[in-house]
């Protein structure tokens, strides 16, 4: 009996192997734009996203476009599981038409051949001038005739701070990272922490490196270069390592209730974060309403004007969508129309990547949670200071996981941030080699 079972198993395996071979041979190169013709009749599109309140924005579109109906599916944020679903769906051939993809994940999806090049779709190439320059650079990968997604929002970074606590304790608002370290000591003396160091969301650290002028990846067309240990990154890592060593920053895992609680109870005083972070604080620390304000991020040299970027995402059309024309049309409306951008800002504090969006009345008004400060004016300044040169690698999920494993160890007192970046460097090169992605070793 046992032998027979083995025979059956082998036979099944062989059949699977054969059918597998038959289906997997059809991948083709995508340097040219994909065909993009309108469909006839009523079109139904699916759109997977994690942006809160996206349903309300899409409802505006559905009402105005009875022939192109969009159905919203929601999931966890990208690295929280939605990207993995996308990759699985792409492999299975049942991906949604449209998906929310952060800029840092676009190279990963392109390398897995998951994105439709929308350059041939109506109005897409012309939309270039509608968007803030660096965001367009993220979706066209520096190629004139390519558009792999439509930019949605940006995450220019500034410093949220507890205006009341700084004032009550007579501590000056830091404008340089040196002053920030000094202020950290003063805040610690009162029993609080100046900020929380993000141990598992590596995007914040990437934003710090971006501000300092570092880059982690280069792509010369033939080969990738990975550089997680360049002098700039090492300088930023050493700075935060020092604050961690001296117990001047808290290290609650980000996006947990523990983390919310530290802000809600006034234990953590500042947060260097992106425009969309305004939403995170307001929902995570409701008891501190009215006490917050926003200032430019501290600079490495007094008088510098540099900002980093944390997150921001795009709307991509997946390979295999039968209606790229309609999907591109919707994506352009979603990310450039005043009505859509106003609603997305209202429901999710998204900071538009479209230039026209920066002039929206909603982005000029004072925000009650921030003491009626017109906080988006600060983010507008920051947005103009974001360097366009920062490039993401093609295996960011892996890079984040490896660096995060090391950062977690570092905040627990085992190893340093610098060592974590070294491991991240080695593992990223290995992960790229494992998929035959050409990389300098």
């Amino acid at each position, binding site marked *: 009996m046992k032998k027979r079972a083995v025979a059956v198993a082998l036979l099944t395996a062989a059949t*699977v192997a054969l059918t597998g071979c038959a289906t997997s041979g059809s991948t083709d*190169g995508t340097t040219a734009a994909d065909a993009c013709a309108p469909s006839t009749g009523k079109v139904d599109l699916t759109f997977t996203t994690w942006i809160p309140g996206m349903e309300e924005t899409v409802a505006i579109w559905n009402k105005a476009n009875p022939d192109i109906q969009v159905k919203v599916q929601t999931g966890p944020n990208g690295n929280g599981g939605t990207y993995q679903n996308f990759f*699985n769906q792409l*492999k299975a051939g049942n991906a949604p038409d449209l998906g929310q993809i952060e800029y840092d994940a676009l190279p990963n999806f392109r*390398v897995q051949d998951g994105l439709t090049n929308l350059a041939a779709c109506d109005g897409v190439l012309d939309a270039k001038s509608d968007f803030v320059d660096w965001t367009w650079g993220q979706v066209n990968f520096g190629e004139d005739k390519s558009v792999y997604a439509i930019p949605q929002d940006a995450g220019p970074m500034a410093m949220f701070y507890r205006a009341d606590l700084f004032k009550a304790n007579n501590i000056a608002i830091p404008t340089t990272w040196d002053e920030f370290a000094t202020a950290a000591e003063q805040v610690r003396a009162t029993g609080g922490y100046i900020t929380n160091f993000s141990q598992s969301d590596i995007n914040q650290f990437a934003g710090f490196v971006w501000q300092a002028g570092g880059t982690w990846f280069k792509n010369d067309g033939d080969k990738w270069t990975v550089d997680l240990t360049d002098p700039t990154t090492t300088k930023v890592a050493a700075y935060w390592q020092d604050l961690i060593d001296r117990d001047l920053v808290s290290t609650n895992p980000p996006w947990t209730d523990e983390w919310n609680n530290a802000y809600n109870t006034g234990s953590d005083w500042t947060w260097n974060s992106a425009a969309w972070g305004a939403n995170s604080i307001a929902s995570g620390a409701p008891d501190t309403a009215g006490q917050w304000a926003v200032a430019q991020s501290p600079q490495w040299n007094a008088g510098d004007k540099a900002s980093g970027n944390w997150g921001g995402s795009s709307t991509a059309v997946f390979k295999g969508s039968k209606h790229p024309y309609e999907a591109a049309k919707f994506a352009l409306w979603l990310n450039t129309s005043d009505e859509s951008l106003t609603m997305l800002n209202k429901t999710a504090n998204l900071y538009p990547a479209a230039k026209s969006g920066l002039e929206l009345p909603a982005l000029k008004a004072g925000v009650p949670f921030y003491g009626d400060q017109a906080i988006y004016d600060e983010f507008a300044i920051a947005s103009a200071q974001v360097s366009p040169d920062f490039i993401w690698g093609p295996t960011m999920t892996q890079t984040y996981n490896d660096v995060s494993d090391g950062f977690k160890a570092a905040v627990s007192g085992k190893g340093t941030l610098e060592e974590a970046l070294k491991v991240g460097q080695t593992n990223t090169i290995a992960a790229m080699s494992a*998929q035959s992605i050409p990389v300098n070793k």
Partner: protein
Amino acid sequence: MSASAALSTDAQGSAARTSRLRKPRVQKVRVAHKGAILAFVLPFGVLFGLFYLVPIGYAIYESLLVIKREGTFGAATEVFGGFTQYVLVFQNGPFWQSIGRVLMFGVVQVPIMLGLALLFALLLDSPLLRGKRFFRLAFFVPYAVPGVIAAIMWGYLYSPNLSPFSAVTENINFLSADLVLWAIANVVTWVYVGYNMLIIYSALLAIPTELYEAARLDGAGQLRIAWSVKIPLIMPAIVLTAIFSIIGTLQLLAEPQVFRSFSSAVTSTFTPNLTVYTTSSIPNVNLAAAFSVVLAVATFILSFTFLKFTQRKEAK
């Protein structure tokens, strides 16, 4: 094909052997049975094939492929790579560390959990305990809580600042690198003790009461009956729960995955299954498939060795 052909020759062979006695009738009955057997086995067979054999076959197939591409954004093609992925598996330090970690986990947690399950089952079965129905339900209730929910709940209980027992958790950090494995062990034990208890308890109920009577006549007390009559008789049930637990330990995923967001000490390669999950999210499905196959083989060897070991002991 070959299997069913073998089956029919087998049937013919046995039919030929019996044909000398009552030829026509026996053959008719045999055919009727075959149809019935097929009808009963088919639903299982189809599902077993579709959701067990085919996925395993597909995983093995994927694990033998490597990806080739030209240029920084070139399209990927999967080509046969032999055992390339398996070489990477055996060179992967974090994967083997994670296996070591769950083995250590299993060596400590499984005996504690099964010890408690056995103790509770014996207590439920003893005539000394009152309120049996209540306790049987109370012990079993944690198993009805989904594993992820249980992990989140315990995560909050362990949390240094938010825990209702913060007087304890502020001083002892259960989520630290030294303790988090045992914090997870506690969650797993809490969830599965009741389940294992029920398996052992139902084995106890199957023991004929005459044996207890005989033992009592021989002067055995309750403790002596438990030790010398009950435990030896329910040994097969205990072995069964032990094998389930060993498999469960090697496949730990939900609890560490939930604890990853609470604790600095749970890495993306904390358990073997978490390593598989992390690798597949790169996405590097070929390497993830090779990890899975190696893990499956390791699980099989471990459970099989345990079974052989206990059977040999019983034979003695």
